[in-house]
């Protein structure tokens, strides 16, 4: 079972943004921090990014993705952040209730004083760039191929064409070459590279993989399996240039055509999204338009350096902790009033202690069953009696009243809750 029903900070997603947020939330004084991950282990997409180049800014070390992830995961676990794996967040309300689903815990509702959205982003697919043709086997996003080759141990194919010069596409061109595939070329519809220049050098040029700018795919050939693609040059308005078509035989087409922040949950929580970034509008503390809901990392806008994602996570985690602590302090002003023995309910449900310092407070309640003998209506803090009132009898049809006096303030101020019991005299 989960350790708590109410958490100070709940973080959705355990990639670099989420893990950084958890670390900083703890350091900033949040007590109960929970991180929720839908995969079988912590780390997010970094686990499949086995190439080097991570951590140069933040750790002054050239680490592969899994190593960078593990560095921060270990720090997070040493701070006693609670972890929930294999768990999908189904819904988030603007009041910061989260609905979770997992095989282990079933369907669970929890509450958070603040939330950090760190769901990252996902890849654009074929459907989003509308390539005509059949739908044969052999067309994957670059990230899917990356997961297969680097984590699960499968090769997507032998003769590869890559559409799009995003970083993951170029990195996969090199990776597939390492594993014995032949990467025929990389096509880019724009007149410039969409990823980092260093990846053009160390992923494509080092291995003589050609990059063709101003080129795209006109159609995909093959019915059951990709057999070839038809490449074509485009003009500055992305119109096909007639006569430039070229059939390139291949069995695999990888798409590296952009990333989209994953914000289905944000939308459900009432978070407003920027149509340009596809991520939430945030202030300098990474708070969204919904109070207490923060967002960090690729869910806000797509970064090219993981170090900066971690930095954004640190800021969001710190802000989320600050919000949660302020809320917890506000809640501490109140003492809950609990219906105890023979009491069905009490109104008010909670009491602002400072009110009692200035004036008497009347509590009203109904009993669960008639008691036709003299009784005490007792208000206690779990151990000590604070006040009591005698009644000759109590009946459900007749409301019972007891008054807390200003002189009770000192006792009430110490109590974490007040319980009202009705006992025979």
């Amino acid at each position, binding site marked *: 079972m989960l350790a708590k029903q109410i958490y100070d900070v709940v973080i959705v997603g355990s990639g670099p943004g989420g893990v950084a947020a958890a670390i900083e939330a703890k350091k900033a004084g949040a007590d109960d921090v929970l991180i929720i991950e839908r995969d079988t*282990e912590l780390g997010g997409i970094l*686990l499949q990014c*086995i*190439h*080097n*180049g991570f951590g*140069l800014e933040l750790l002054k070390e*050239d*680490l*592969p*993705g*899994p*190593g960078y*992830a*593990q560095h921060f995961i270990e720090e997070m676990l040493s701070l006693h952040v609670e972890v929930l794996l294999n768990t999908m967040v189904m819904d988030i309300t603007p009041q910061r209730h989260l609905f979770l689903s997992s095989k282990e815990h079933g369907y669970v509702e929890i509450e958070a004083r603040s939330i950090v959205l760190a769901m990252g982003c996902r890849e654009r697919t074929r459907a989003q760039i509308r390539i005509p043709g059949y739908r044969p086997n052999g067309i994957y996003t670059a990230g899917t191929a990356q997961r297969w*080759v*680097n*984590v*699960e*141990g499968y090769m997507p194919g032998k003769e590869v064409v890559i559409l799009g010069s995003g970083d993951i596409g170029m990195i996969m061109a090199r990776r597939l070459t*390492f*594993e014995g595939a032949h990467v025929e070329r990389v096509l880019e519809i724009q007149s410039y590279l969409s990823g*980092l*220049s*260093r990846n*053009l*050098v*160390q992923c494509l040029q*080092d291995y003589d993989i050609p990059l063709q700018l101003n080129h795209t795919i006109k159609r995909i050939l093959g019915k059951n399996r990709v057999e070839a693609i038809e490449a074509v040059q485009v003009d500055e308005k992305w119109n096909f240039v007639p006569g430039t078509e070229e059939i390139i035989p291949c069995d695999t087409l990888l798409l590296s055509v952009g990333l989209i922040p994953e914000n289905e949950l944000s939308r459900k929580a009432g978070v407003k999204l920027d149509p340009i970034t596809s991520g939430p509008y945030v202030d300098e503390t990474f708070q969204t338009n919904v109070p207490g809901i923060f967002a960090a990392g690729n869910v806000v806008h797509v970064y*090219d*350096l993981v170090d900066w994602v971690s930095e954004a996570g640190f800021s969001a985690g710190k802000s989320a902790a600050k919000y949660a602590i302020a809320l917890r302090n506000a809640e501490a002003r109140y003492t809950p009033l609990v219906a105890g023995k023979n009491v069905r309910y009490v109104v008010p449900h909670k009491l602002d202690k400072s009110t009692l310092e200035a004036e008497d407070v009347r509590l009203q309640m109904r009993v669960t069953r008639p008691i036709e003998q003299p009784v005490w209506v007792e208000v206690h803090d779990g151990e000590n009696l604070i006040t009591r009132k005698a009644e000759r009898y109590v009946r459900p049809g007749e409301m019972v009243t007891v008054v807390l006096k200003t002189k009770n303030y000192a006792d009430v101020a110490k109590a974490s809750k007040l319980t009202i019991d009705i006992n025979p005299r």
Partner: protein
Amino acid sequence: MAEEVNFICTACPQGCALTVLMENGEVLGVTGNSCKKGLDYANAETSDPRRMVATTVKIRNGFHPLLPVYTERPVPKPMIPQVLAEIRKVELEAPVVMKTVVLENVLGTGINVLASRSMPAKK
């Protein structure tokens, strides 16, 4: 005769376009760099180009079937195919701890190959 060579610095993600003035294999001057790393890179790239190599090895009884590994320092670029072939021969048994040396002094380069992450045993 001095000649100009142009390439992109890969020392960091900034990717500066370097222009290197060369004569008889000697670097006379570098322009286009934003920091000292660029100078070092230009010298290395024109005499002994090197790259970090990251790949995977088989791991028995692991949480995943593959363990990602990387060279602790950049290896000479022309050696990359042989380095990959050597690393491919490695087969490990889970559990393995991050930064464990999985292959020592690969091909006499003095460079070790390290585990990129810890890999717990299959549950």
